[in-house]
């Protein structure tokens, strides 16, 4: 990867000024399963649908929501294997940061370095862009809750609420109507589940969705257990 035989980039400009490889990567993301996130005033929630091709798949073993460091977690839409590479790199970079500074890497710094990695893969020799858009949830150094989206191009955006993947336009419209600036984390979790249900094919249960939460109170990211998800599902129906 990126050795002398492939010292030229595979991502090059078209006449109209586009980087088609990145456009195609975004298509891959748009075909992926929906993920969404909401930033409340006292925390952040991210959620995704983890339906897979067959009922024979052991869903318990699938884990799309991943903790990166104490205060941050990722979820994605797009290519799972590409996502896992990014998760590995992000975890390593968080640990390097901790070695140097003896502090947890703030979510804004994590986003910048992950975005930087994704950008490298659009310019380095012999590699292709990552086929994922990440949603990053965390509580930053100044204790403020943050939600970021990172795209295959390496561009990143801070959001109050957003969705990526299949059906993201409808999901975002739904979120736009429901979002309030002074929303609390509990409300945000309910809204996230309602939004996920909007575009869900079939019945949404505790086993075919995943939810990750970080609250401002303790600043720790955690993925909810199926039982915890069931409690929230019961509340929303």
């Amino acid at each position: 990867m990126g050795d002398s035989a492939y010292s030229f980039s595979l991502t090059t400009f078209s006449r109209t000024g586009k980087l088609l490889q990145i456009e195609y990567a975004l298509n891959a993301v748009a075909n992926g399963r929906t993920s969404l996130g909401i930033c409340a005033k006292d925390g952040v929630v991210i959620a995704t649908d983890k339906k897979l091709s067959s009922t024979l798949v052991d869903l318990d073993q699938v884990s799309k929501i991943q903790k990166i460091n104490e205060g941050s977690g990722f979820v994605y839409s797009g290519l799972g294997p590409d996502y896992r590479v990014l998760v590995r790199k992000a975890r390593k970079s968080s640990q390097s940061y901790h070695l140097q500074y003896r502090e947890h890497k703030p979510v804004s710094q994590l986003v910048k370095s992950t975005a930087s990695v994704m950008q490298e893969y659009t310019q380095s020799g012999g590699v292709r862009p990552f086929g994922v858009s990440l949603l990053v949830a965390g509580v930053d150094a100044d204790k403020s809750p943050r939600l970021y989206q990172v795209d295959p191009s390496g561009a990143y955006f801070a959001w109050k609420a957003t969705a990526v993947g299949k059906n993201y336009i409808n999901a975002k419209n739904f979120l736009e109507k429901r979002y309030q600036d002074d929303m609390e984390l509990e409300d945000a979790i309910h809204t996230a589940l309602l939004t996920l249900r909007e575009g869900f094919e079939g019945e949404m249960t505790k086993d075919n969705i995943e939810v990750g939460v970080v609250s401002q109170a303790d600043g720790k990211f955690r993925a909810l257990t199926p039982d915890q998800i069931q409690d929230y599902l019961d509340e929303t129906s």
Partner: protein
Amino acid sequence: MSILEYNGAAIIAMAGKDCVGIACDTRLGAQAQTVACDFRKVFKMSDKIFVGLAGLATDVLTMQNLLKFRQNLYELREDRELTPKVFSNVLSNLLYEKRFGPYFIEPVVAGLDENNQPFLSGMDLIGAPVYTDDFVVTGTATANMYGMCETLYKKDMEPDQLFETLSQALLASLDRDALSGWGATVHIITKDGVTSRELKGRMD
């Protein structure tokens, strides 16, 4: 002759009530010959962080620049100030990177943390840190300074009293060490600001 004793230095950092003090001598020598009497070894990194670097003078200057470099990058990237604890760890990390060809300095870090409480740390030349709540010393007169500090130190001194204690401890230690002396500078750091004073001592 140890390389750490070539230029000579004496630095003490002490904690008081909601304040810290850090003081150094100002001699620069080439073994027995005195070359300068205005070579300060304590550097202000920010209003709340001071670092004292004792050892080989060239490494003192290099490390001062390296620390400033790292501090600037951190503050630009993170859009926030370094805290003393994090700064101390950066320094420790920098030193350990050169584990098998070290910088010949033994630093001390003195500062006020986010709650304006005193922070003190000292390290050896390869970055092994020690965190204390009373005082840290480094340089060529450490035996003298440890004795003086242990005797004169009291907990929760106000800034003025801290200044007196720190100054007396340093001055007495300098006089019995051939390689340090020729003037001294003392900084007292509180949440309201820093007071720096020059001490009048024996110029020998």
